[in-house]
């Protein structure tokens, strides 16, 4: 009986040791975690919007929607979705926060449209009592939209309530607006007093919503576009005679002009990533349009001619680059009294395809949605 007890004790001890051994081992060994399931979220461009300016006093501003799924362009898209017309002179368009903001200058209102459905959300009137303000261009900063109007003011709109909250007085006949470094830059053209043009850019501070500075620029400043490096590119159109159209760069860190491109004339531009697409055409010689490429980081000219095949564009009136596909869309307004078209170029400057838009197509915006939705 004694031996049996001895073996049992040994076995028990051995059992405890092994138990301990396993206990130690399993506590050091990491428990395998549940495997991570990776979900592929892919954005794609389903369509694009093109704003057709129309002509002054013709009530024919319109919106074209081009669907990439079926390659169909619907002119009068806004009218078909809302049973009413956009208005007179569609001057600017921008997509922000799932909404399209269309600045209809002569009708003196901003039409806010849902980007997915094309249905109008609100029409914001721009009147000073009985006097139309004539809004011209729009820029955004955080939750506010800023619209410059030809009567020398900038309206601040809350992007949720879609109401004008404040009017800020700037220079004469502002015709361009952009945001950089939490400040709003407004080009004061003074165009209605030609040849006594204005030559300043107003700087509005986002925090206080007041004008804090006026930067001296070349006469008749208009279009303003900001890059991601805190620079604001402003085109000064001169006097349509001996003073030529020039592109200037304003540094938003010290609010002064840091460079002027004196080697070429420029009419307007769009900036995507590190590249600025600058276009120009000479009305007097009617020799066709020109699109130049500028490096936005170093402010140097990359190419004198973006188009590398022999495609001819009569009158460039707008450029937009799809940030997903890097395709470059250029509008051609022809002679301004005939419906224009949109031409798609690859990033290599070769024409891919084109489609008809409305009268004087200018600004464009892309509808990017999640795949499958």
């Amino acid at each position, binding site marked *: 009986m004694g031996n049996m007890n001895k073996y049992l004790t040994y076995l028990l001890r051995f059992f405890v040791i092994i138990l301990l051994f396993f206990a130690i081992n399993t506590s050091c060994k990491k428990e395998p975690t549940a495997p991570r399931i990776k979900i592929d979220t892919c954005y794609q461009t389903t369509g694009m919007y093109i704003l057709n300016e129309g*002509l002054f*006093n*013709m*009530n*024919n501003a319109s919106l074209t929607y081009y669907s990439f799924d079926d390659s169909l362009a619907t*002119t*009068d898209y806004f009218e078909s979705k809302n049973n*009413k*017309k*956009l*208005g*007179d002179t569609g001057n600017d368009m921008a997509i922000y926060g799932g909404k399209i903001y269309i600045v*209809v200058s*002569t*009708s*003196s*209102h901003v039409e806010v449209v849902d980007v997915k459905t094309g249905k109008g959300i609100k*029409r914001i*009137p721009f*009147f000073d009592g*009985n*006097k*139309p303000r*004539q809004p011209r261009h729009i820029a955004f900063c955080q939750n506010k939209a800023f619209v410059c109007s*030809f*009567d*020398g003011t900038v309206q601040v709109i809350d992007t949720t309530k879609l109401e004008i909250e404040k009017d800020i007085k700037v220079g*004469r*006949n502002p015709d361009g607006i952009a945001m950089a470094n939490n400040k709003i830059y407004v080009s004061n053209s003074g*165009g*209605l*007093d*030609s040849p*006594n043009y204005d030559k300043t850019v107003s700087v509005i501070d986002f925090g206080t919503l007041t004008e804090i500075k006026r930067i001296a620029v070349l006469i008749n400043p208009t279009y303003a576009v900001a890059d991601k490096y805190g620079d604001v590119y402003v085109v000064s*159109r001169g006097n*349509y*005679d001996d003073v030529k159209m020039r592109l200037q760069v304003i540094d938003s860190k010290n609010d002064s002009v840091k460079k002027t491109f004196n080697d070429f004339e420029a009419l307007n531009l769009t900036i995507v990533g590190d590249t600025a697409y600058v276009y120009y055409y000479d*009305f*007097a010689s009617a020799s066709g349009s020109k699109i130049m490429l500028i490096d936005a980081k170093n402010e140097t000219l990359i190419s004198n001619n973006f188009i590398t095949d022999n495609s001819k564009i009569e009158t460039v009136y707008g450029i937009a680059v799809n940030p997903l596909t890097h395709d470059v869309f250029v509008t051609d307004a*022809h*002679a*301004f*009294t*005939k*419906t224009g078209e949109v031409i798609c170029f690859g990033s290599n400057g070769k024409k891919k395809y084109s489609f008809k838009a*409305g*009268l004087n197509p200018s600004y464009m915006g892309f509808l990017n949605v999640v795949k499958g939705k």
Partner: protein
Amino acid sequence: MQNNTNTLVNNKERLSSIKKLFLFIVLVFVSVANLYSQSKLKDTVSIKEVEVKAVKPKTEDKSLESMQQISRVELDRSSGNTADAAVKTFSGVILKDYGGVGGIKTVMVRSLGANHTGVFVDGVQFSDVASGQVDLGKISTDNADNVSLTIGQSTQLCQPARFFASANVISIHSSDPVFDSTTFHCKTSLKSGSFGMFNPTISLQNKIGKRSFTDVSCNYVRANGEYRFKMPSNDTTGRRTNSDIQSLNLNARYVSTFSDSSKLSVNLYFFNSERGLPGAVIIGNPFANSKQRLWNNDFFSNLQFNNNPSHRLQLLSNVKFSTNYLRYLDPEYNNIAGKIDNRYTQREYYASQAASLKVIDSLHLSLASDFFVNTLDANLENYARPTRYSWLTALSARYGYKRLEANGSLLATIVREKTENGNAAPARNVLTPSLLLGYRLTKSPFIKLRFLYKDVFRMPTFNDLYYTLVGNNNLKPERAKQFNLGISGYSHLGIFEYISIKIDGFYNRVSDKIVAVPTKNLFVWSMTNIGQVDCRGTELQLQVQTKKLAKIQYSAMCNYTYQEAVDVTPNSATYNQQIAYLPFETFTASASANYKSITLSYTSLFNGYRYVLPENIYANMLHGWWVSDASLLYDLPIKKCKLRAKAEVNNIFDKQYEVINNFPMPGRSFFVTLSMIF
């Protein structure tokens, strides 16, 4: 300030030299007139009295030139009492109407714009050298005897050279009073109705001595011009405001016929108006263009002399001075001044001598020479202040033998310009011929074939040449070649005591057409000579007048025009497309019934669809429209006076339509006019 004094001094100098020239011409004129008033009287010849039964054929149904007329009787029955209302029912005419009582009204005849149409009142041309367009709403037809539209030119023997210088001529003639037993006539009327209309007129005719008379008339219009509208192109509704008008028109004529049947007439015209300009209706902006205003102040004086109309050598002399002031105000412009306040003053000094000689019975030769000076002054910065010297000489010959009639003319135009600021337009010397041929096929019924070829041009206006930023002082004149081939006839037929039919086919080719294109930037469009237009069409006209059926006399007319005017500018983006604002079809029909002293009339006007931009797409289309008017006239003689009451309803069916894109026209309106003639 220094600048202003200098320009004042320059103006004075220029004025005094023109005044001297003007006075010299008046002196020459008066001395020539004196010479002719002293020639001997011919012996009188007596003829047997013959009763004429047939209806007198209308001039336009027999004439060599293609012509349409509306008589005093027809003017009384139709709606409106201004020149635009009279011409809009003519074949081949498109009236461009900006709407309302004060809205500007200009005409397009066979696709040739208002700049190609000369407007003459009693032989004096109403011209606007700044814009080249005459607002027909300014010309009253209350005292007119007839209003006519002539394609090409009139073939009357003795006419100033200026009558040869337009593609088409609208002519308004005042009635000469007939004094039976009295030496004094007075006509007074009051028109009232829709748009707050208040329109009194008064006209006094006084016989002086045996062969002279004075004719003074005064016409005042005041209206608020407001009306409700619903625009068919975008369903916008609203009320037209800032369309009030206040105008005063004074006319004075002194006509003296001498013992040798030569005639001297002095004509004075004064027009003053202030009106609101309602502007285009803009979606979402009821205050757009809501405060613009326009002032006009026009004056002209004309001296005319013609010798005995039965002389072998006919003479017609004219001397005229006119001044036109226009002020445009936009008190809401976003410039430093906060407004646009443009003032323009035009002056014209004109002298003309025309002569016509009857060589043999079948051949007449005419020579006319006109010299005139036009100046334009404006308060625009650095304005050019141009002066244009024009010398027109027209040589024409008319031959008529049996069935054949021919009229050929050659017009020489010499123009020189100078400016105070900037370059002046270059000198122009243009020679333009024209030929009219007529061949009578049968005498009863009267059927005649007509052919017209005319080479015509219009000088660029001062606005085309010198307007700040827009003007192009190198512009060439716009040229047009007109062709017309037609057949016209008249007769009596059964119950119709008069029936006339006209069928015309026409072709116009316009070259160097002055068109605005962007040459500096999108906002600044300049004038260039790049257009070419090809226009072809047909006009059909029918007029009938019945005998008295159950004591009622009926008359009716209808006309139809079909035209295609396409852009044939080489390399044009809209090649072969119909030009803007020209409907393909227009149709007018009117009928009236007269029973003793009551007349009922009905007119219907149809303008087919047209495009508002050169591109012929649905988005640019303005729908066609039918508008009908009716009027009731009642004459009541009381002792020595005659009372007349007229009630008119315009646009009976309240049709909402636009002639110019975004300028809605008034709906239904009513007017009552009471007049007294004694």
